């Protein structure tokens, strides 16, 4: 907040008027409207009196200019000098050790031709297998590994085997930016003074030497969750040599609940792996498995889940069509809940009660839970019936943040329903040494306080920031004689440590890791460390007999030990080449859960706060990543901040509204947070994403968000009842939402014009989102193309045969190919991976919070989110629809005729080209674009100064300068290279040969791109689908990007009124 007060842009005077956001307003808007209501947020649905005040002041915020004085770019410009000194360009070379490129790529470097290398991004939840594109030894673009079971995409229907690709998540896509971040720590430091690695080793060895005698009694090693067999082996050997020494693992978003739950259910630690491709009924007990990599196995789960909803591919057409059903009982508003066929929002603690009731109803032992209102009861009964009917084909998924009891209950229910071994497998945990981390950390803190710890080595952790607040880690920390921190950035912990050692990025150093399913990957570096980083392996080696061992030696020797004999070389090369070791997935353990004995937590009726990892920056580890900061979080559309997220009923009760600053108080601890009201959020609970509000952090993360860790205790680390909320009158905190900027209706609007539902109904009456229930679709398969919003006849042209008819009706005569795209709304889960992929592929700049507030974000691909209620009166429990919006590449592009210099013109292949060099920036094209997909460089947004970021840029794409319009090009650089390749072989481009960046990364294969003149191409098949429609067709823009209407499969016994599809006509 401090940074905020410096900047009057972000601060606006609050008005004394009372809150406009009420359920009543919303209902009265919605009631009386035919059909489902799509609206974008509650501010729109209800009117907010603030605007009146704004008009009194006529123009608020006489903003001098939308850039904050100490801007990110400004800082990095300073950095550039030092980068130049660092002579970065000289550093961009491949590692000395032999690395093995991926298939079908030239082994040697041909300038201008990228080389692909398989590697993996380790995370606490298991590794993300990657294929990294390297230009002139510079890793530039992250893709998924096509062969790895965890990252291969949905079988591409008709595609030949060699045309397949791997999928990734947003964080993996963005991780390449961290590699080049000039703010990474670059030197070994002792109390802030620069030292050499040698001195560090010396100092540590001395201190360690003293400990040796007492079996290393004073030595503690604190790492994040270790999924690297080699590292684990290294640490274990250290512990063997020093039996008194101890090793702890800590991650803020740890899996203690799952572990404890497993102990309860199975008497041992296990990982549950869900096989959603086998499941017809999926029940999520607060499990947010569709919204990103913070859920273990996110890629595979979303892929398998959606594969059961691809009505044209998986289920077969027409009568044969089948579709799974997703029930979500959740304590927040998540994409998983948004995609649910039937959703039941409730407080996190009530989920446990619901689970108990469900278990009880399914005949699993254990105590019965209480289900309060009638709707929940209806829901429960219908759910039970459904589960009984689909034994062995259903699955119940407990949420990571849910209590051990819920995990145990879920396990028990899955066994009872005969799902174990079918839709859910129980395997050895992904981390090599599973622990209950909070307990471990407690022990460590106790030892530190007791003065037992003389030497503490922390690798890749930041406990001073993210340890449970009640442990008072920092205080205990001070009592340790020698504290060494190894990390990629200087952070809160390094500031309090004696030694800091810069750590290598995963693209810089050798390691190995396991994916969520246990499959082992070798982490292969693509580049020599940019900033003298050291890997965890090297640091741990300091405590071994031969401190000098490199990461490469460590990893290789470990695997040599695993594969005796002459077979090693081929094995090793294969592993590097493929990016993983086949058949290393953890085998399923024949485990049957015993009925959960543990009692349910007592029912309470207090206001609750739920702690969740942030959807984009997780537990704060990615806070310095501009791409993730500016990535609008699913559902909330929030960027650059976190907020106290609540339902509007709760907000009403608390007498607060969006952007009001409130003080959250939980057993003594206090923190100030801005309010954000989100549709579908359960009442009487507040969601706080942790990871923001860091104090020692790079310029990108500075001043963003509030620190929810301050409220988070070891005991109640996921949700806690009894939070006190007090509004700080007069204080506002501007929240940069990428959708619905300052959309405030005046009182007049509501009373005089709209009366009922005009505003709320805008999106619906415009027919942007078209959806139906499974049953309705069966009845009227063509529902998506009924109604008034249809394209006019092509004969309606002044020019007769000369007009677009000539080349649209017979496009092939213009060029060998005509490109088009189809986006399957059924498959899109709004996970944002495509957005970051686009940003990475196309060198899209980050603009910063002030610019986002001004409405100038640059992302070429955005995910519009609309809400609708199956029951038109129940605004508290909406469905969310995610609609990715790239350029529509209209055949009659409205942007083209208005450009005075012909800077945007049509290509023979039907692309709406943007000629940056010719653009003078009149912005008329953007005004005239009905889809508002064009982005303008209002200021010099691109970073031309930071050396390291220059190396990050994709050399195949222009970096746009100030005053130029830009937009999605269907990745024209990829199209061109494929065309050239095909021409060399004198053939046409094959279907699937061109994959756009967004399509390639999509975990659920929601995006299809190809030649629409090729009758057999997948895109043609998608477009021939009856549910295929185009946005704003009545404008006769003839978009090449089309959408496949979404089908939901709600349980008829639950839906209060059957959902009518998107037409108001």
């Amino acid at each position, binding site marked *: 907040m401090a940074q905020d007060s410096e900047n009057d842009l972000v601060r606006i005077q609050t008005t004394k008027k009372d809150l406009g956001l009420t359920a009543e307003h919303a209902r009265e808007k919605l009631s009386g409207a035919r059909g489902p209501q799509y609206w974008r947020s509650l501010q729109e649905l209800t009117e907010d009196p603030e605007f009146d005040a704004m008009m009194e002041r006529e123009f608020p915020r006489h903003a001098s200019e939308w850039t904050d004085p100490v801007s990110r770019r400004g800082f990095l410009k300073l950095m550039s000098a030092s980068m130049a000194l660092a002579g970065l360009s000289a550093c961009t070379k491949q590692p000395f050790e032999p690395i093995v490129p991926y298939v079908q790529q030239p082994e040697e470097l041909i300038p201008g031709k990228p080389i692909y290398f398989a590697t993996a991004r380790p995370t606490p939840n298991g590794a993300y297998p990657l294929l990294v594109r390297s230009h002139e030894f510079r890793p530039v673009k992250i893709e998924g590994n096509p062969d790895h079971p965890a990252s291969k995409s949905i079988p591409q229907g008709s595609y030949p085997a060699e045309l397949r690709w791997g999928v990734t998540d947003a964080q993996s896509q963005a991780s390449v930016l961290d590699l080049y971040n000039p703010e990474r720590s670059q030197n070994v430091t002792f109390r802030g003074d620069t030292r050499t690695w040698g001195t560090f080793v010396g100092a540590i060895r001395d201190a360690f030497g003293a400990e040796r005698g007492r079996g290393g009694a004073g030595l503690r090693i604190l790492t994040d969750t270790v999924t690297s067999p080699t590292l684990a082996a290294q640490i274990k050997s250290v512990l063997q040599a020093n039996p008194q020494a101890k090793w702890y693992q800590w991650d803020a978003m740890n899996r203690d609940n799952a572990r404890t739950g497993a102990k309860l259910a199975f008497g041992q630690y296990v990982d549950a792996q869900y096989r959603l491709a086998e499941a017809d009924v999926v029940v999520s007990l607060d499990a947010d498995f569709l919204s990103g990599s913070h859920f273990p196995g996110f890629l595979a789960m979303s892929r398998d889940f959606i594969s059961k909803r691809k009505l044209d591919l998986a289920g077969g057409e027409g009568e044969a069509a089948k579709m799974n059903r997703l029930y979500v009982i959740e304590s927040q508003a998540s994409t998983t809940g948004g995609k649910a066929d039937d959703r039941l929002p409730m407080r996190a603690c009530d989920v446990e009660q619901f689970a108990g009731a469900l278990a009880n109803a399914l005949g699993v032992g254990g105590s019965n839970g209480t289900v309060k209102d009638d709707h929940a009861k209806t829901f429960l009964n219908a759910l039970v019936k459904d589960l009984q009917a689909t034994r062995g084909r259903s699955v119940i998924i407990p949420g990571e943040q849910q209590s051990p009891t819920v995990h145990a209950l879920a396990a028990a229910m899955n066994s009872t329903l005969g799902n174990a071994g079918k839709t859910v497998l129980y395997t050895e945990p992904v981390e090599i040494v599973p622990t209950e981390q909070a307990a471990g950390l407690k022990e460590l803190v106790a030892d530190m306080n007791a003065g037992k710890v003389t030497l503490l080595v922390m690798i890749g952790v930041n406990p001073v920031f993210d340890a449970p607040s009640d442990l008072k880690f920092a205080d205990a920390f001070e009592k340790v004689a020698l504290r060494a921190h190894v990390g990629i950035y200087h952070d809160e912990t390094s500031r309090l440590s004696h030694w800091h050692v810069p750590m290598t990025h995963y693209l810089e150093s050798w390691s190995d890791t396991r994916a969520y399913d246990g499959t082992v990957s070798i982490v292969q570096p693509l580049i020599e460390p940019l900033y003298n980083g050291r890997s965890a392996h090297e640091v741990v080696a300091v405590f071994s007999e031969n401190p000098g061992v490199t990461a490469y030696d460590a990893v290789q020797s470990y695997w040599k030990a695993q594969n005796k004999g002459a077979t090693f070389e081929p094995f090793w090369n294969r592993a590097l080449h493929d990016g993983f070791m086949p058949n290393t997935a953890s085998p399923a353990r024949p485990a049957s859960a015993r009925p959960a004995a543990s009692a349910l937590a007592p029912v309470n009726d207090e206001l609750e706060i739920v702690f969740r990892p942030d959807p984009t920056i997780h537990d704060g580890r990615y806070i310095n990543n501009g791409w993730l900061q500016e990535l609008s979080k699913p559902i909330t559309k929030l960027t650059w901040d976190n907020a106290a997220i609540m339902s509007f009923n709760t907000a009403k009760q608390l007498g607060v509204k969006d952007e009001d600053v409130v003080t959250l108080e939980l057993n003594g601890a206090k923190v100030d947070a801005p309010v954000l009201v989100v549709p579908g959020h359960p009442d009487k609970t507040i969601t706080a994403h942790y990871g923001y509000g860091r104090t020692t952090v790079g310029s990108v993360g500075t001043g963003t968000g509030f620190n929810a860790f301050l409220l988070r205790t070891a005991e109640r680390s996921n949700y806690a009842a009894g939070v006190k909320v007090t509004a700080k009158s007069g204080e506002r905190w501007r929240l940069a939402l990428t959708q619905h900027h300052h959309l405030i209706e005046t009182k007049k609007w509501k009373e005089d014009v709209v009366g009922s539902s005009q505003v709320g109904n805008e999106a619906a009456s415009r027919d942007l989102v078209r959806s139906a229930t499974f049953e309705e679709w069966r009845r009227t398969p063509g529902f998506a193309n009924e109604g008034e919003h249809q394209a006019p006849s092509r004969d309606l042209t002044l020019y007769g045969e000369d007009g677009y008819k000539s080349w649209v009706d017979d496009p092939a005569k213009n060029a060998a190919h005509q490109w088009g795209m189809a986006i399957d709304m059924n498959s899109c889960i709004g996970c944002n991976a495509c957005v970051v992929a686009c940003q990475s592929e196309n060198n899209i700049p980050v603009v910063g919070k002030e610019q986002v507030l001004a409405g100038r974000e640059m992302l070429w691909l955005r995910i519009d989110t609309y809400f609708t209620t199956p029951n038109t009166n129940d605004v508290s429990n909406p469905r969310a629809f995610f609609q990715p919006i790239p350029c529509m590449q209209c055949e009659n592009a409205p942007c083209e005729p208005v450009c005075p210099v012909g800077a945007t013109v049509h290509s023979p292949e039907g692309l709406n080209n943007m000629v940056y060099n010719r653009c003078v920036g009149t912005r008329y094209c953007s*005004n005239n674009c009905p889809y508002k997909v064009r982005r303008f460089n209002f200021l010099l947004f691109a970073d031309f100064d930071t050396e390291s970021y220059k190396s990050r840029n994709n050399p195949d794409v222009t970096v746009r300068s100030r005053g130029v319009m830009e937009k999605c090009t269907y990745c024209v650089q990829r199209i061109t290279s494929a065309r050239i390749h095909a021409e060399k072989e004198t053939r046409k481009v094959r279907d699937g040969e061109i994959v756009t960046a967004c399509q390639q990364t999509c975990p659920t294969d929601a995006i299809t791109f190809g030649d629409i003149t090729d009758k057999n191409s997948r895109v043609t098949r998608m477009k021939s689908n009856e549910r295929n429609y185009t946005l704003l067709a009545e404008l006769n823009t003839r978009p090449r990007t089309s959408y496949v209407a979404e089908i939901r499969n709600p349980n008829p016994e639950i839906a209060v009124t059957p959902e009518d599809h998107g037409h108001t006509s």
Partner: protein
Amino acid sequence: MATLPDNRPVDLTRPGYSTPVIAPGYNLEQVTAKIANVILTTKIKLGWFGVFIIAFGIMNLLLGAVGYLFVKGTGIWGINIPVGWGFAIVNFVWWIGIGHAGTLISAILLLLKQSWRTSINRFAEAMTLFAVACAGLFPLIHTGRPWLAAYWLFPYPNTMKVWPQFRSPLIWDVFAVSTYAIVSLLFWYTGLIPDVAALRDRAKNPIAKLFYGILSMGWRGSARHWHRYETAYLLLAGLSTPLVLSVHTVVSWDFAVSVVPGWHATIFPPYFVAGAIYSGFAMVLTLAIPIREAFNMKDFITDRHLNNMAKVMLGTGMIVAYGYATEAFFGWYSANKFEFFMIQNRMFGPYGPMYWFLILCNIAIPQSLWFKKVRSNVPVLFLISLVVNVGMWLERFVIVITSLHRDFLPSSWGMYHPTKWDWMTFFGTMGLFMTLFFLFIRVLPMIAIFEMRTLLPQAKVKH
């Protein structure tokens, strides 16, 4: 030095009396003297200096704002996506509109043989030129890369063999506005030639003599010259009339050609042209009233002129009102979702108050012009002219902003807040306008001398 006539009292109560376009009792020499002396002999008034300095100061706001704009980029303004056009375009349309009265008065009223035009057409034309100069700034500086826009918008052969895209209304604009500027300049200068010739022969100061001598090109009032001169002037008037109508038509196409609800309307051309004349006459009044006070020109710019201009304002104002009505009506009658929403949003959305304020300024208040009392009350007339200027600016603001900020996809709706740079640029152009205008009335005859002569009884040839 001529002596001014004793104004014999005129019985204004006499039925059927209307104020003459020139007060009685003047002879040729006196007309020449009265107008020419403002420039040649009268000492520069302190008042003139005062106002000029102020105007010049305001003009420097513009220089500052534009300077910073070129350094930083259009991001210093309030524009964004979806509102890609802001003050720059609003001001452009406003100034161009003002720039219509001059040529209209000179051309159309000449063709209609409205002799009362003679005493106001000269500075009305000057006003036109300066307004067009102000307007012309904006299309250039509002672009992202003005250093390129400055010449890429004109067709010239270049190594890349690329040409302007002639389907774009913005290019039509470039041609329309520059044509209008050139023709207005020619028209104005042609009208000036005989007058500067008169100044040349009157001037004592050798520099002034040389200056006017060059400008007059050796004009000597030969009957043969007068003959061709009159022909040329009449033809120019004939050409300017369709031109002046075409210019704001083209400007309206900048909007009407798009697909944006609230822009895409067939009513735009007539309604824009009427609006232009409306604001133009308002501005002429705004200038004429103080000037005839300051330079004691009441005998030449009589109440009759003010009265007539007020009537023209009333008329064009009604056409504009009809335009608003049609827009609203078709918003509903078209049964087009987007049109209907647009008109609702325009009236009751976030910018609703501005819409109603513009209705007040452009329709409600001017209705008072129906009454002769109001038309003949100079201070009130002056105020009304100011109100209409404000109203017409608001109209353009409402058209540009409210149509853009909520168009087709609700997900992309936004708001527009002008920044201090927007305001500086806007006021700055007013400074530029006033600076040019004050220089003009010091250097050139603000009233067409030779045409005034023709109004005198002596000028009537009996046989």
